[in-house]
């Protein structure tokens, strides 16, 4: 048995401390690396293979998530936050906001978030300047920040870049199909013959969609937070000319609102933007 003198004991303690500190760093390092990149892969893709001067084109943030992980819609619901992108593009290029495909309800314990699992493309329309010279190489860059969650959340950021030639004509890129599929999931403006209204009572909104035909299934996704209670079940009553949906008011809603805005999904690949004026009864005004 080796016996330690005072100094070797001290040395042993110091070594042990060093090991502990290093192990600590390693854990921190591992945490910093736990990498959102290993559970969510992101790439910047384009619908077309070239940019045409003066024309609008579409870029997409292509997310591939590991099973069980999700990212968030523009209204994240009870927790989380939507991805945000800061574009760096050559002069004259204008990127619009992300066009959000309709999400799904993600339930965890007693709460509901709105987001996407597995694969999703977040499409962004971009306008190319008219004075763009044909034959140039256009470098499109963006800094993306997002949070990906399962039981736990991992924040992530990544620089994305894509170089496209400018040309007089464009044709479909390899990612073209993905844009086609995703476009069906973008909420459309409400058909002009639809009439929507909402009536407010003490603790719920009754949203009536008069579509001229029976709507037997639907899910409402509120575009603004603090209007409806995300986790509350939505009670549907279908009628020959549409559907009536009862939505529980958010506990955080303290004042009457003028309009209830959201996305109504009535079937797969069929979603509409709803902006229903709210009728508030006398005593709630």
């Amino acid at each position, binding site marked *: 048995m080796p016996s330690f003198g005072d100094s070797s004991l001290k040395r042993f303690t110091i070594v042990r401390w060093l090991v502990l500190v290093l192990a600590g760093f390693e854990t921190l390092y591992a945490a910093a690396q736990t990498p959102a990149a290993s559970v969510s892969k992101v790439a910047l893709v384009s619908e077309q293979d070239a940019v045409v001067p003066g024309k609008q084109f579409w870029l997409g943030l292509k997310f591939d998530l590991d099973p069980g992980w999700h990212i968030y819609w523009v209204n994240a619901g009870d*927790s989380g936050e939507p991805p945000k992108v800061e574009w760096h593009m050559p002069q004259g290029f204008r990127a619009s906001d992300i066009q959000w495909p309709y999400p799904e309800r993600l339930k965890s314990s007693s709460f509901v*978030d709105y987001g996407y699992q597995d694969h999703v493309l977040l499409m962004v329309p971009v306008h190319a300047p008219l004075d763009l010279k044909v034959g140039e190489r256009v470098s499109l860059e963006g800094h993306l920040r997002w949070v990906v969650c399962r039981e*736990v*959340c991992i924040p992530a950021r990544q620089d994305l870049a894509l170089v496209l030639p400018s040309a007089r004509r464009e044709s479909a890129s390899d990612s073209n199909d993905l844009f086609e599929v995703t476009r069906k999931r973008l909420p459309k403006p409400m058909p002009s013959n639809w009439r929507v209204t909402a009536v407010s009572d003490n603790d719920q909104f009754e949203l009536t969609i008069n579509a001229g035909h029976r709507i037997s299934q639907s899910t409402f996704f509120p575009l603004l937070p*603090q209007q409806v209670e995300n986790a509350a079940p939505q009670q549907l009553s279908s009628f020959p000319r549409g559907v009536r949906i009862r939505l529980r008011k958010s*506990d955080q809603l303290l004042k009457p609102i003028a309009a209830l805005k959201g996305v109504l999904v009535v079937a797969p690949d069929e979603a509409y933007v709803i902006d229903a004026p709210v009728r508030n009864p006398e005593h709630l005004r």
Partner: protein
Amino acid sequence: MKRTFLFLAVVVCLLIASALFGVRIGEAAPDFNAVDSRGSTHRLLDSKGRFVVLEWHNQGCPYTQKHYQSGNMQRLQKEWTARGVVWYTVISSAQGQQGFVTAQQENDYLQRMSASPTAALLDPTGQIGHLYTAKTTPHMFVINPAGVLVYEGAIDDKPTTDQSDIVTAKNFVSLALQEATSGKPVSIPTSRPYGCSVKYAN
């Protein structure tokens, strides 16, 4: 047998109701009893006459880390407890879930982070969390000396995990406490809480 069933049914209904009907601004904040990380018991009603802040917490959550690694939360705790406010950090992570801590682990954490809440309440059953419908970490509540809820929501107006956002953020908790302690109505009484979901038992 029948009576037990009826009792259970009532309990379940109450639980569902309490999960659906959270606390509301202007209403009495529900009372609770809790044990803190040092083994002391706290009852909300005992703090009548003082302002109380409830801070839902999960040390593994990047949104919580934003406010602790920057020292933002500790600054608030120090400032307001010095002014007589009772500050409860509440941990509702269930055992096995992210953010669950033993009393010792929490005490080590408080010391390491130089955090100084009045107490860190351990709520692994999620009882207090469900009572208040705490959704995220952080999720902040401010209760006035009469026991009435005057603020509920986010800590500030920058729902991100970036520490650099804190400098320019409007802190809703400070604002509510400043206004309420000087006898003014709270101008922003609610906001969408942002953060990780509270890791309740499934």
